[in-house]
């Protein structure tokens, strides 16, 4: 009934979004952000709305493999892009190594920032592997290659994702484990054995 008002017009368009490898065609109000399209229209509520103004990182998704906040992206501008949300990072029932590490190392408390943290971490690991420097990188010359993914590097690169519960210590541990690096400041005394996806 409501959808009738949202046909292609001067204020709405029918668009096709490619999300987690699947195409979705839907009419959207031009004001609709990618975040609201995911949450309100496509029932993909794993992407969270923490501030709706690009300041908290809870709505982080991957656009063509790179991190982006879905609240600052209009849905109509996301056509023809590969959108990956938290619902699309696992391999069927097998969790992504970042998800598994967050679960095993308790990299969250309330869980509301968690999908954004996980998508961001996946982006961080890929950006780092591709040799991208960060503000914490001491040698930024291209020939220097990727710096070691130290705790300091992880913290700097993850700083766009706020966690008000303050689970930062275990988030950094989880990112390090998923990246297969030795987190220099790990304290694993509570870690239940065995299930980790560490390389």
């Amino acid at each position, binding site marked *: 009934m409501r959808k009738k008002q949202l046909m292609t017009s001067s204020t709405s368009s029918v668009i096709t979004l490619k999300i987690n490898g699947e195409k979705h065609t839907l009419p959207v109000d031009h004001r609709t952000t990618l975040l609201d399209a995911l949450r309100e229209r496509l029932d993909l509520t794993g992407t969270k709305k923490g501030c709706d103004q690009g300041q908290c990182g809870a709505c982080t998704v991957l656009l063509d493999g790179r991190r982006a906040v879905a609240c600052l992206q209009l849905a109509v501008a996301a056509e023809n892009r590969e959108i990956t949300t938290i619902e699309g990072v696992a391999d069927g029932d097998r969790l992504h190594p970042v998800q598994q590490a967050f679960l095993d190392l308790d990299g969250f408390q309330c869980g509301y920032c968690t999908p954004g943290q996980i998508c961001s971490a996946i982006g961080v690991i890929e950006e780092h592997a591709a040799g991208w420097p960060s503000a914490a990188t001491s040698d930024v010359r291209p020939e220097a290659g990727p710096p070691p993914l130290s705790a300091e590097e992880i913290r700097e690169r993850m700083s766009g994702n706020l966690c008000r*519960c303050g689970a930062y210590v275990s988030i950094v541990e989880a990112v390090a484990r998923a990246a297969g690096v030795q987190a220099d400041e790990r304290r694993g005394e509570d870690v239940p054995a065995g299930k980790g996806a560490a390389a």
Partner: protein
Amino acid sequence: MTTLTTATTLHTPAVGTAHTRIEGRDKVTGAARYAGEVPFADLAHGWLVLSTVARGRIRDLDTESVLAMPGVLAVLEHRNAPRLTTDYTSLLGMRPDPTCAVFQHDRVPHLGWPVALVVAETSEQAREAAETLVVHYEQEPHDVGFGAGHPDAYAADGHMPAVTEKGDLDAELAAAAVVVDAEYTTPEEHHHPMEPHAATARWDGGRLEVTDSNQGATWVVGELANLFSLDPAAVRVRSEHVGGGFGSKGVRAHQVAAVMAATVLQRPVRVVLTRRQMFSLAGYRSPTVQHVRLGADTDGHLRALAHRSLSQTATGYEFVESSAGVARVMYDADAHHTANRVVRLDVPSPTFMRAPGEAPGSFALEAALDELAEKCGIDPIELRLRNEPDRGPVSGLPFAGRNLAACLREGARRFGWGERDPRPGRRREGRLLLGTGMAAASFPAGAMPSTASATAHPDGTFTVRISAADIGTGARTALTLVAADALRTSPERVRVRIGDSDFGPAMIAGGSMGTRSWAWAIRVAAGELRERLALGTGIPPEGITVRSDTTEAIGALAAAERHSYGAQFAEVAVDPGTGEVRVRRMLGVFAAGRIVNPLTARNQLRGGMIWGISMALHEEAVRDRVSGGHVGADLAGYHVATHADVPRIEADWIEDTDPDDPVGIKGIGEIGIVGAAAAVANAVWHATGVRHRSLPIRPDRILAAAAEAPDA
């Protein structure tokens, strides 16, 4: 009928062992649905309109043009909204916060006061219409100017007596060899859980159903039933997953507005607060001005302790940030005076925020102790050990276990405190100044009546129901471990269901009392169920259910000083060129009762300590005296600690218990923040030689203080 065999001898206790969160998989896959994410057919969206003046009267609202906008279904405001009842006392013994009794009159008591709710078919339509709505005000002069010496301040009780006085303060101060007399200030601070407040209300067969994000379903049901004059049994509130609370998630304007709109439109209505709206509608921690006076003999023995705190509240609502209360537990003195005062201003209603009273109070008191230690030439830990009281300094009651000294000693050992040169400004690393600091901590350990039920099923599994809330504390998992032990079974065989008011009355997730109160009720129900099963009768298909109510048991608890304790240690690096303070490491050692799940407990305690870093260095809501509103009311203007601000943090605990609690729990939600900001501030003094008595310790404050220092 199936007969259940209980193999008691094979049971391995679950409490005390690390367990990943039961809902963890749902949270890391995005499957966990929070309040604003549960789908409803025919859902309408409400958007609140907030006042743009700090005091006055609504003269008119141009609702007609807004009602003509696409998709708009209704505009609720004071002239057409359903009437509410506000003459009641809530579960927590408080009067309702007027900010949640929306649209009842034309008065505007603060900026950001809800003046209307626009309801439309889509959230975009509702938002645009809400932003288009013109509201005409008769503006009146306002006063938001908080500060020491406000003429309208008065002593107020809040959740503890306003004033305690013992001994002759002037005489003891005069007789003291060493005196500290200093004023400390903390700014307005906001909870900002990552999930904004959200609620969907609908009527279902004569029953009001609210899907909500809150810290206690029983609490919210009680408030809504009172406000709307409904039988509490006709109200059901559910909140399966809650994205943080920290004290801010009780009944708020959005739930009430959603219920009003659902009632008027007879269809489901969802109202979600925006991050900006949370600054005036979600409560906050009042700023404080605290005056601490300590008088001691040369050996550090306290002769005089005076702690006087001023906080602000709203004109129509009294909430007291009881910062002077922590001194009533921590230290004794021959003359011991404490007082909490408030001033009513044209500001939003403050409320409980993680360690209300203790968080700002411990900053002032523990910083003052550090100053006293310096003046006496005594190690700060030794000073505290010399002043350990053997009874409640004000109450005279015995302590039900006071393990502060053990925390201090263990923390000192692990932090390497013994190698510290007490002189400030001695350690350098390049241009950086390094320092270490410590503080002591306490937080009340309490329990409140709750009910629970435990059901044994024929297949050997169990279901436990309690209207608890897991706001990120890991309560769902902790309660599963507690229930498993009480039933002598494995956690995998127990399903704990929470977040539904239909499970019966229970305590909120608050005051560090949630898990303890719920665990108590579960333990009683599960224990009785196990006894029933031991009789060997079969289990019918519908199972065997036992209910519990801890009202009597908790009422029978002997009066005592019941608290958790902690010792906080911090190392900082201060850049004298930029004024930047960075925390390099932190250690907290706590005596917080029995730790149910070490994996989640350590995370939660560290979270509290991170709140301490954030409080010490970042958080500050700045109120503009001219407009009466905030400057930069968003997460870019209001800084909370992020990854790069948080170093290696260790939280650990010592053996501790509450002998009167069947599970020995004390609660760990708040003790982690207490004293943490003081430890950081004391480390900044040790690094720089300058005392910073106003939080947050911003770069400009470091630079200004360094410029004023005598040797600058």
